[in-house]
């Protein structure tokens, strides 16, 4: 006697066509938006208001657009940073730590008045880049030398540097006039000036400039080719004689540097001082943006801008519809997850096999 049972197996596709790839991306986004829509409607937001708050008020309103752009500036840099490392499958989960490093360095330059005032801002931003790169250099070293897992190390390093931030703010850098843990305000020469449109500041050009630079580097240069090869298969890349280690080191240092620059831009363009809160949330948003943009710099800029819009719309939902602070993270998570699920099914297809099981 034979018992028939049905099994399900996942079979990896030999090759994924461009059409399938595009379909999975659009399908993932569509599913994500649809679930988001359901979540919002079930929390009591009118369907018509969703369109109004997410699209009209944010992207077709000069004021909303300015808010989205302001929010997007550090997100672009954090997203570029995340993309630079993750493209090579170096999982930088400590973006917040590097943002803190950059914020500390920029504040340090301002606090100790390093360099002439005419170039002080440049010194601050440069210091932010170097500090972010230096902070990630530690996990890079331990990974390459001792094989220490970078996920754990970058993550934990973010907690370490937050302790340093607290030490500085409750100690030597505390603003004597504030009685609270913040550094003194920066001087005018240490602030990125506003461009005259909402709160948008010159950090926008910095972010767009680095977006262009990363585009050239990753998509139009030999280095970018190496990075792609290493990301796909480091062993094969090594076998063909590509400088794998150098490529990883440069990319990951760039990743830390860009995240550090985000910290520099937040301090000099938005907060004008070091606070205990300014880096919160950038790891998650940076990773979401990098993933949605497929690690491509030009797309990172676009996606960061859209995520900035989601933040602005999220604030409106929070303020006028009583939704919680978590709503933005929830929306980001839903969209990211549905993209990943669709991508998974573009790589694998399901086969139902009937198995004969001897009794």
């Amino acid at each position, binding site marked *: 006697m034979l018992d028939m049972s049905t099994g399900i197996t996942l079979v990896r596709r030999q090759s994924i066509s461009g059409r399938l790839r595009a379909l999975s991306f659009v399908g993932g986004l569509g599913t994500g938006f649809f679930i988001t829509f359901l979540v919002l409607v079930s929390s009591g937001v009118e369907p018509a208001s969703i369109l109004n708050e997410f699209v009209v008020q944010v992207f077709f309103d000069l*004021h909303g657009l300015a*808010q989205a752009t*302001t*929010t997007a500036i550090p997100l672009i840099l954090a997203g570029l940073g995340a993309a630079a490392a993750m493209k090579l499958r170096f999982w930088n989960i400590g973006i917040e730590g590097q943002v803190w490093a950059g914020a500390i360095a920029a504040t340090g330059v301002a606090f100790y008045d390093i360099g002439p005032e005419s170039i002080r801002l440049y010194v601050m931003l440069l210091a932010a880049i170097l500090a972010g790169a230096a902070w990630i250099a530690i996990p890079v070293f331990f990974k390459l030398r001792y094989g220490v897992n970078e996920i754990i190390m970058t993550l934990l390093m973010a907690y370490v540097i937050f302790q340093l931030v*607290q030490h500085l703010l*409750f*100690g*030597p850098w*505390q603003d*004597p*006039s*504030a*009685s*609270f*843990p*913040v550094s003194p305000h920066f001087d005018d020469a240490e602030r990125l000036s506003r461009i005259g449109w909402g*709160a948008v500041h010159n950090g926008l050009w910095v972010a767009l400039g680095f977006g262009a630079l990363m585009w050239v580097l990753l998509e139009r240069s030999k280095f970018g080719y190496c990075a792609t090869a290493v990301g796909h298969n480091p062993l094969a890349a090594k076998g063909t004689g590509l400088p794998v280690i150098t490529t990883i080191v440069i990319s990951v240092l760039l990743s830390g540097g860009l995240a550090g620059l985000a910290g520099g831009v937040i301090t000099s363009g*938005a*907060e*004008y001082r070091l*606070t*205990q*809160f*300014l880096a*919160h949330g950038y790891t998650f948003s940076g990773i979401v943006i990098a993933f949605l943009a497929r690690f491509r710099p030009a797309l990172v800029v676009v996606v960061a801008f859209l995520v900035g819009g989601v*933040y*602005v719309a999220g*604030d*409106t939902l*929070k*303020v*006028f519809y009583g939704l*919680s*602070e978590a709503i933005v993270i929830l929306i980001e998570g839903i969209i990211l997850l549905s993209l990943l699920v669709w991508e998974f099914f573009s790589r694998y297809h399901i086969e139902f096999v009937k198995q004969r099981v001897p009794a």
Partner: protein
Amino acid sequence: MKRFGMLLGLALLLITISPQAHAGFGIEGDLKIAYIMGSTRQDGGWGESHGIAIQAIEEEFGVDVAVTEDVPEDTVRVKQIIDLYVRRGYNIIIGNSFGYSDAFLEAATEYPEVAFMNAAGVTNNQKNLESFYLRTYQGWYLAGMIAGAKTETNKLGMIAGFPLGLVNWDINAFMRGAQEVNPDIELAAIFLNTWYDSVKEGQASEALLEQGADVIATDLSAASALNAAEQLNRFSVGFQIDMTRHAPTGHLASVLLVWAPYLTDTIRKIRAGEWEPSEWGAFVGIETGSVALGGVTGDLPDDIRARIEEARQAISEGKFTPFDGPLNNQDGDQVVAAGESLDDGALWQMNYFVEGIVGTMPASN
């Protein structure tokens, strides 16, 4: 001579413009009030004390106050949330975090027709902006008198957040009040470097109880400090709201933050067009009922009760402050001479413990 002429001109100018200067700030149209909070109205402490004030405002003015909770101390976001309210017609915006200060200042200059108030803020000096805070140390002094009278081990314990002026004055005033009724008393104070951590607050309290303290005072929000004392049948002192419910038998008193008197009074002035924000911000206390004791134990000797009432009166009338000299710091050095007192600036800068407190003030501060 030239200077004299200038002064004369200035005086004349002041005389001529003084009627307008008295007019003060007001808003047009109906009250539309929004409250931006760093935590929630049910957080058991800071946010809940503001929630009580929101209810008082709604009852007094017959309006619904729009509330946004859990707004992080991020200048760009706070400003954007204010923008949203102002653009939809709100004309009184109230915040409750120090970290909102810069956003409130920016908004006050950008929207001169809107009134802004921020609790624990530090930005001021605009015709439509006032930061406000409470003289919490006055309440802690009175609570200290109760604790000093009730302790049997002569050891008090207190847990607190961060070593900042507005925290240190609570600890020091608590000690001064206890010393007033019980000169042999000792107070152990611990900073936990957090504003809310239920587990840490409980552990620190247990440690203080183990060292022999029989009164635990908390300058924080979690219930765990009071629970820890209650379990060992010891006494406790709460903060921000009436915490009796966490320790029904051992609760001696809670130092209450009462925001409603300042807020309702200010909103009334704004409605009448008579609001004149202080250049330095509002700093109110027991005299307006903005700081008070709640849930005071019924089990107090009559003479102590009378002395507390006497002290409350004296503080209220400005005849006495908890930091009148002579006042020595922890190391025995005199910080305030006899016959003198601390001014507000010195209060905000308070970076030492007073004599009799066991505990370490972080040196770098």
